[in-house]
């Protein structure tokens, strides 16, 4: 998966305006291609890029590597599981499979919010497991030059926030990069 995308968005930016060799299935990847096409040529990156799915929680923007995102779905009915671990909202039906849904807000230290029509579940694959992450809204899919990523100022970190792998400064936005494995380790 990774290599295929790598070829498409090569360092020279050759693929930016070219149509993808194969029509991609899955709305999210398709969306990513659309973005590629719309992007002005002046923005063509010169170095390595991070391909991110971003979502907003309160006033912070977070990013996940797209390689770990399988799809983004609307929030259907979520069934609460008695005695589940903290930060687990419940389980939901993903086309006949039972998907665990993680409450990312409380995991990241925010308060629980009610789901709205804009809420989405980001379906991610970590190792061989597939999980859902409940977010307030998915903003977009972006490509960020890797050299814009800096470590977060130490003063804003607190114990147990090692899931922040860095901060991308891009077009006057700050995107907090999440280390999914650490986010989902769910050790409490």
């Amino acid at each position: 998966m990774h290599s295929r995308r790598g070829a498409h968005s090569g360092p020279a930016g050759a693929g930016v305006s070219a149509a993808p060799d194969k029509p991609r299935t899955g709305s999210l990847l398709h969306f990513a291609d659309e973005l590629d096409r719309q992007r002005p040529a002046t923005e063509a990156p010169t170095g390595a890029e991070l391909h991110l799915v971003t979502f907003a929680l309160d006033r912070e923007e977070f990013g996940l590597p797209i390689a770990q995102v399988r799809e983004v779905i609307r929030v259907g009915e979520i069934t609460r599981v008695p005695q589940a671990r903290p930060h687990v909202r419940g389980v939901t039906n993903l086309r006949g499979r039972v998907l665990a849904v993680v409450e990312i807000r409380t995991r990241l230290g925010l308060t629980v919010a009610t789901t709205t029509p804009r809420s989405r579940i980001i379906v991610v694959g970590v190792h061989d497991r597939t999980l859902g992450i409940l977010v307030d809204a998915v903003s977009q899919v972006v490509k960020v030059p890797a050299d814009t990523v800096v470590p977060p100022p130490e003063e804003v970190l607190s114990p147990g926030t090692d899931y922040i792998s860095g901060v991308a400064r891009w077009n006057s936005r700050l995107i907090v990069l999440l280390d999914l494995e650490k986010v989902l380790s769910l050790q409490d």
Partner: protein
Amino acid sequence: MAADENAFSELIQDYIVECLPLAEQVGDAFVALERRWKEGDPGDNTLAALAGPLHTVKGNSAMMGIAPAQTVAHALEDICALLTAEPRLRGDEGAALLVSGSGMLIDLVRRAAGGAQPEAAAEFAEQARAFITSAQTGAAASESAGESTERRAGDRRITSRREEAASEPGSVVRVDFRRLDALLEVLGEGMIEQSAVIELYRRLARKVGPSDEVADLDRALLALQKTIKRMEGILMETRLLPASSVFNRFPRLVRDLAHAAKKPVRLVTSGGATPLDKAILDRLGEPLIHLLTNAVVHGIESPEERARAGKPAEATLDLRATSESGRVVIRLSDDGRGLDDASILAKAEALGLEVRASDPEQLRALIFLPGFSTVKEVSSLAGRGVGLDVVATSIRELGGTIEVSSRPGQGVSFTLSLPLTLAILRSLIVEVDRERYAVPLSHVTATVRTEPDTMHQINQKGVALWRGDLIHVADAGELLGTGAPPNGSRRFYVVIGTGARRRGILVDRLIGHQDIVVKSLDPTVGRPEVVSGTTILGDGKVACILDVVRILDQRVPV
């Protein structure tokens, strides 16, 4: 209110649809048997095959509170059990009882919605008891080796017939088991879709009212239901393997263990032909090896000790599998020294557990707790720090139960009760605080409507008088932590039980019976004590399956 009444009458309809064919099947078989026995042909294992349907009728009758049908089915079961074990008794008297009882049962099931007279049922139960008592006193005199060899010969006959069937050349194909799993998965999806269609049909029927089309649709759906049920039956049978496929590994294991422990031990296995789902068999080897190892290393005394106790030098381990009413029971007995109750008590006290020494069953159940080992010397064979709790956990994960009984100086016996299959679970769907949950029917004893003057409190815990016994009735909302304050308005309670243990759970609504496809719980969610898995219901929503065994195990009530 009206919705509840509707739900209840739907449940009664479900009951009749499921049980009437079973009762009729049993009745037909009894009539055929009566003829055969008159002709002096006591053979055949038809009787054993009827235990399943009878048990289903009994269980469902109990659940629906149709006591007369339950009584009659129970009495029939008792007679069948006796006649299965004692072919000599298969004659006119027994056959007449079976035929009349099954006739009564069919009638009771058919009229489940309208009242039936309990007197006739009680009278029949009395007749059955009298027949069994007189048969047993008569048998006691003549009971000897003859009977048991006869039974063993019977076992062997069944085994060889099965093996013949399995090895008939040209009619056997080898199939990767994963394909059977895939097939089951697809069937499971079909079942979910089927229940979605049935759900829609019910809503539609309520909306448009009775009409020819609705009636036709009803019939068509019933036919579809039956077909899918049959498909499920055949597929399940395809997945079954004889217990011997696991047992076969054991003679050598026991021989090696016995050799290393310098104790002569003989392993006797029986019931190897008993079928079990391969998925269960695959996970049964480890726990059984553990129990066998324990028996050889700890249970069986040294030859000198046995000689002092007047026992034969060679110890006997008896491993048998039997099918009992839709479950498989595996029993491992040794003739060793038995459990050391005093050590268990001492250990329990050391761990700060409150136990009544006067209740040996409660005491012995403690050996399944983590960190509970009374073994003093650690040997290279057993006592590797893996206790019986691991065995108990793996059996529970298979949806089974494990019990121990022990007689000092005479040996220990472990009884494992396992479902035939893991994948599909017949369940009662209930609603609690607007969420639905599945309760495996195998552990549902009854569903009861709460009446204000039957619910009481002791020490702030709910209790109810149920069939003459006081049972603890917990609020499902509290048990499941739904967060809704208990408001005392739940209209039903479900009585769950294993062995002699019973507990009630208060729920809001009974939705109905359903075959559910079990989907395991993602470990990310955690390891909830009260939930054993999940399933997808007809409307696409996920529901949790309650872990009845562990709920019953909780010593401290919620």
